[in-house]
C-alpha cells in the first residue's frame, strides 16, 4: 500500500512498554500534514494506530481552526476520533463548545449538546452577549458550513428564538449562499416590517441577492440585486416588485448601472432608472431624488483631448412639473483637442459641441426643441516675466449654429460668432517666516473683451442658473452653458492669501470683483454680477491639524448686504465628530427661488461607552421656520455583535409624498461569514 505520510511525535519522555504501545509524556506534540496536537500525555498503540490523549489538549488545524479538549481518542493522522469537553475556536473569533466532539475523516466535526458564540466569555460574567445552544452542531470543513440542529438563540442568557435546523457559513467563507443579517423597520408609510436578505453566489463572477420585505400595512415586497463582473467591466441591477395599501395595482422600480472599458482607451458608462409611481422611491426609503435620470455615455480623456458622447433621458417626479414640457431627451457630443500652436508658440484648443434636446409636447413655445452646434478655436500663451509675473494671453472665437423648432418667438435658424480675447497678469509673492509659517499672496488682474449679443436672439435653455465664486471670477463667461456668452469689456480682479503653519494648519482667504465698461445687465439683477461693479465674491478656507475644517463663501455688495452665503464646517475627532452646513440665498425668480432660502443642517456623532456611538442629524429651514428633517441613531459594536438603530423624521410633505417617520433596527451576529470591515472593539475582561 502506498506509504502514508508519517506522523511525528515529540515529547520530553517516551516510554516503550514492549507490547505495542508507546507512552509519551511531557510537552507532547503530534504533527501530521500541518495539523499540530499538543497534550500532556499521549499513548500510541501501533497495532490499532490510535492515540489516547490526556489534556489539556490543543489541536490546531491547517486552516487555523483551534480545538481545545480535556481528553481525546484520535486516529494517528488526527482525522478521526472523539474529544471530551471540547471547544473549537475558528478564525480567532467564533467559538463552539460541547461536552463531546467527534472528528470524522478530518472533514466533519460533530459537537453534541453544544454552544456557539463569538462573544468573549470572561470569568466574572460567563454568560456571553449572545449564544446559540444546539442539540447538535456539525462543522463541515470542506464546504466551510456550520449546521445547527434544534438550536436556541439566547441573548444575555435568555432564550430568544428556537430554530429546528439552520445553517451558517464559517468565518473563512465570504461568498456563501445564505441569509444575511435581517433588518427591522417601522415607518409611517409601510408600518412595522422585517427584511431578510438572501444571498446566492452564481459562480465566481455573478451573484444575486433577494430582499423580501413584509410589513404591517400589508406590504409584500421582493427586492432584488443582481451583479455580474466581466473581464472589461461590470453591471448591477437593482429593483423591487411590491404591493401595499397605497395603490391597488403593484408598484416597483428597476435600476441598472454598468461601466466597461472599450478599446483604445474609451469607456462606456450607463445607468437607468424606472419607477412605477412618483412616491415609490420615498415610501420605500430608497432615494430622495426628484428627477429620474438615465444616461448612456461613451468617452475618452487624455492630457490634451476630451471626447464625451452622452444621451440622457430624465423624468421629473417633482410636483407641478409636466414632463412633456421638459427637455426629457438630451444628446451631447463634446470634443476638445489641444495642440501646440505652430510657429507662434502657446497652445491652440479646438472645441466642438453638438447638442440637441427634445420636448415631447408639440405645443408652440412649451414644446420647443433645439439642435445646436458650437465650434470654438482658442489660442493661449503663458509667459513667466522676469519679475516673477505670470502673463497669459488668450485670443479666439466661437461660432454657434442654432436650430429652434416649435417656438414662434425665435427664428428657426440663428448663427452667431463671438470673437473674444483676454490678458491676465498674476503676481504671486511668498515668504517663510522664522517660525516656519509660510504665506503666499497672489494678486490677479484680467482684461477681457468679447462681442456681446442681444439676449433675444436664441432661447436660454442651458444657462438659466448662474453661480459666481472664485472658480469663475476669471475666464470668458460666467454662464454655465453656451446659450449665453458673457460679452462686453470688463476687468476681473482678485487677490488670494494662503498661510500654512508648520503643524499642517492652513488658511486661505480670497476676494474679487468684476469691473464692467459695457454690457451692464446680462445677468439676473439679484446675481450681483450686473452694473459697472459686481458684488464682492469672497471665500475663506480653514483646515487645522487637529481635525477642524471650515469652508465659507459669500457674495455681498459694497454695503455688505449679503446676497448669497454658504458655510460648511466640520470637527473630526476620535471620540466625536460634527458636520454643519448653512446656506443663505436671496430670492431669485429667474432661478425659481421665490423666497429667500436659509437652511441649517447638522450631523453629529459621539462615542459614549467604549462600544456605543450616538448619532444625531437635523435640517432646519429658516425660510418657513420649521425643521425639514431630524434623525437620531444609536450603534453598538463589539467583537461579536453589531446593532444599529435609527429614527428619522421627514417633515416635508406634499400631496403625493406625505411626511414620514422611519425607525430601523438591524442586528448582525459577527463571527459567521467573512469578518466585517473595520476593527471591532473587543471587550476586555475586567479583572
Amino acid at each position, binding site marked *: *500500500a502506498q*506509504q*502514508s*505520510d*508519517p*506522523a*511525528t*511525535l*515529540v*515529547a*520530553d*519522555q*517516551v*516510554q*516503550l*512498554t*514492549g*507490547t*505495542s*504501545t*508507546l507512552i*509519551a509524556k511531557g510537552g507532547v506534540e503530534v504533527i*501530521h500534514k500541518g495539523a499540530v496536537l499538543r497534550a500532556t500525555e499521549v499513548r*500510541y498503540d*501501533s*497495532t*490499532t*494506530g*490510535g492515540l489516547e490523549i490526556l489534556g489539556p489538549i490543543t489541536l490546531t488545524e491547517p486552516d487555523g481552526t483551534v480545538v481545545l479538549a480535556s481528553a481525546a481518542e484520535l*486516529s*494517528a*493522522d488526527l482525522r478521526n476520533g472523539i474529544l471530551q469537553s471540547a471547544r473549537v475556536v475558528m478564525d480567532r473569533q467564533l467559538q463552539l463548545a460541547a461536552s463531546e466532539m467527534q472528528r470524522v475523516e478530518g472533514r466533519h466535526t460533530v459537537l453534541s449538546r453544544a454552544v456557539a458564540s463569538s462573544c468573549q466569555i470572561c470569568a466574572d460574567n460567563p454568560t456571553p452577549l449572545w449564544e446559540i445552544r444546539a442539540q447538535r452542531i456539525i462543522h463541515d470543513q470542506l464546504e466551510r458550513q456550520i449546521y445547527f440542529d434544534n438550536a436556541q438563540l439566547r441573548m444575555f442568557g435568555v432564550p430568544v428564538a428556537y430554530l429546528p435546523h439552520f445553517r451558517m457559513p464559517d468565518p473563512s467563507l465570504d461568498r456563501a449562499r445564505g441569509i444575511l443579517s435581517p433588518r427591522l423597520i417601522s415607518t409611517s408609510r409601510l408600518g412595522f416590517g422585517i427584511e431578510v436578505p438572501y444571498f446566492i453566489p452564481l459562480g465566481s463572477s455573478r451573484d444575486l441577492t433577494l430582499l423580501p420585505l413584509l410589513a404591517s400595512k400589508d406590504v409584500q415586497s421582493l427586492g432584488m440585486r443582481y451583479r455580474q463582473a466581466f473581464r472589461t467591466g461590470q453591471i448591477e441591477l437593482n429593483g423591487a416588485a411590491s404591493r401595499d395599501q397605497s395603490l391597488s395595482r403593484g408598484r416597483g422600480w428597476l435600476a441598472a448601472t454598468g461601466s466597461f472599458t472599450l478599446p483604445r482607451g474609451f469607456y462606456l458608462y450607463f445607468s437607468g432608472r424606472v419607477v412605477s409611481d412618483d412616491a415609490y422611491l420615498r415610501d420605500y426609503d430608497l432615494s430622495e431624488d426628484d428627477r429620474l435620470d438615465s444616461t448612456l455615455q461613451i468617452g475618452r480623456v487624455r492630457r490634451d483631448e476630451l471626447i464625451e458622447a452622452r444621451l440622457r433621458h430624465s423624468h421629473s417626479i417633482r410636483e407641478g412639473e409636466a414632463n412633456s414640457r421638459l427637455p426629457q431627451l438630451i444628446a451631447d457630443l463634446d470634443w476638445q483637442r489641444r495642440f501646440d500652436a505652430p510657429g507662434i508658440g502657446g497652445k491652440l484648443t479646438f472645441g466642438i459641441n453638438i447638442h440637441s434636446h427634445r420636448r415631447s409636447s408639440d405645443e408652440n413655445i412649451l414644446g420647443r426643441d433645439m439642435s445646436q452646434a458650437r465650434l470654438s478655436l482658442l489660442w493661449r500663451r503663458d509667459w513667466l516675466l522676469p519679475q516673477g509675473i505670470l502673463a497669459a494671453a488668450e485670443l479666439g472665437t466661437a461660432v454657434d449654429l442654432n436650430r429652434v423648432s416649435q417656438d414662434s418667438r425665435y427664428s428657426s435658424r440663428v448663427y452667431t460668432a463671438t470673437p473674444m480675447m483676454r490678458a491676465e497678469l498674476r503676481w504671486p509673492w511668498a515668504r517663510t517666516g522664522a517660525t516656519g509659517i509660510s504665506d503666499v499672496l497672489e494678486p490677479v488682474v484680467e482684461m477681457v473683451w468679447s462681442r456681446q449679443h442681444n439676449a433675444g436672439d436664441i432661447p436660454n435653455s442651458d444657462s438659466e442658473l448662474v453661480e459666481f465664486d472664485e472658480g469663475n471670477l476669471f475666464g470668458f463667461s460666467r454662464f454655465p452653458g453656451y446659450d449665453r456668452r458673457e460679452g462686453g469689456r470688463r476687468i476681473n480682479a482678485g487677490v488670494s492669501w494662503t498661510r500654512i503653519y508648520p503643524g499642517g494648519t492652513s488658511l486661505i482667504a480670497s476676494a474679487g470683483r468684476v469691473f464692467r465698461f459695457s454690457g451692464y445687465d446680462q445677468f439676473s439683477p439679484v446675481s450681483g454680477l450686473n452694473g459697472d461693479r459686481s458684488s464682492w465674491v469672497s471665500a475663506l478656507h480653514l483646515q487645522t491639524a487637529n481635525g477642524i475644517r471650515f469652508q465659507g463663501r459669500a457674495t455681498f455688495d459694497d454695503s455688505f448686504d449679503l446676497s448669497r452665503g454658504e458655510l460648511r464646517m466640520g470637527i473630526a475627532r476620535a471620540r466625536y465628530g460634527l458636520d454643519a452646513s448653512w446656506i443663505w440665498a436671496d430670492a431669485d425668480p429667474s432661478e425659481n427661488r421665490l423666497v429667500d432660502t436659509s437652511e441649517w443642517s447638522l450631523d453629529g456623532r459621539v462615542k459614549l461607552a467604549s462600544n456605543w456611538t450616538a448619532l444625531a442629524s437635523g435640517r432646519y429651514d429658516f425660510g418657513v421656520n420649521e425643521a425639514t428633517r431630524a434623525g437620531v441613531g444609536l450603534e453598538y459594536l463589539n467583537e461579536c455583535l453589531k446593532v444599529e438603530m435609527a429614527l428619522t423624521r421627514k417633515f416635508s410633505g406634499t400631496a403625493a409624498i406625505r411626511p414620514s417617520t422611519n425607525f430601523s433596527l438591524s442586528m448582525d451576529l459577527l463571527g459567521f461569514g467573512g469578518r466585517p470591515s473595520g476593527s471591532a472593539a473587543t471587550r476586555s475582561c475586567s479583572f
Partner: protein
Amino acid sequence: QGTALGFSGLKQDPGAPVEVTSETLSIDRDAGRAILEGDVLVIQGDMRLTAPRVEVIYGTEGQQIKEIHAQGGVTIVTAADAAEAREARYDVATGGLVMSGNVLLTQGPSTISGERMVADLRAGTGRMEGRVKTLFNTEPKAGN
C-alpha cells in the same frame, strides 16, 4: 504478531556467551578491567555492539563479564532493531542498558530519537528521555 514497538527486539538472554574482538587489548587484572580499542566488536547471541573504545569490567570471580562500557559512538544491532548513541553502558547480569548522547532507536519503519535511553533488555521495556522525537506511520496494520 505485529512489529512490537518496544525493546523486545533487543531482548537478550543474559546467560549467552559474550565474544569480544578488538585491535588492541589491555588487561588490568587486579582492577578486574580490560580496555579494548580500535573497531571493538562485542557479540552476545544475535546482538552485536560496535564502538571505537570499550571497557569491560569482570565480576569478582574474575571470569564472568559483569559490565560493558562503550564510548565514542556506539551502535547496537539486533535481528529487528538498531540503536546508536555516543555512549552505552550495558549491565550483562541484569540486562540493563543505558545509552546517552543523540540516541537513535530504529524499529522497522519507526524511529525514536532522544538524549538518553534506559532499557531493560530482559523485559524488553525501555524509556527514552530528552525532547524525544518519534516517527510512526499512521496506517494501522492490515488486519486489525
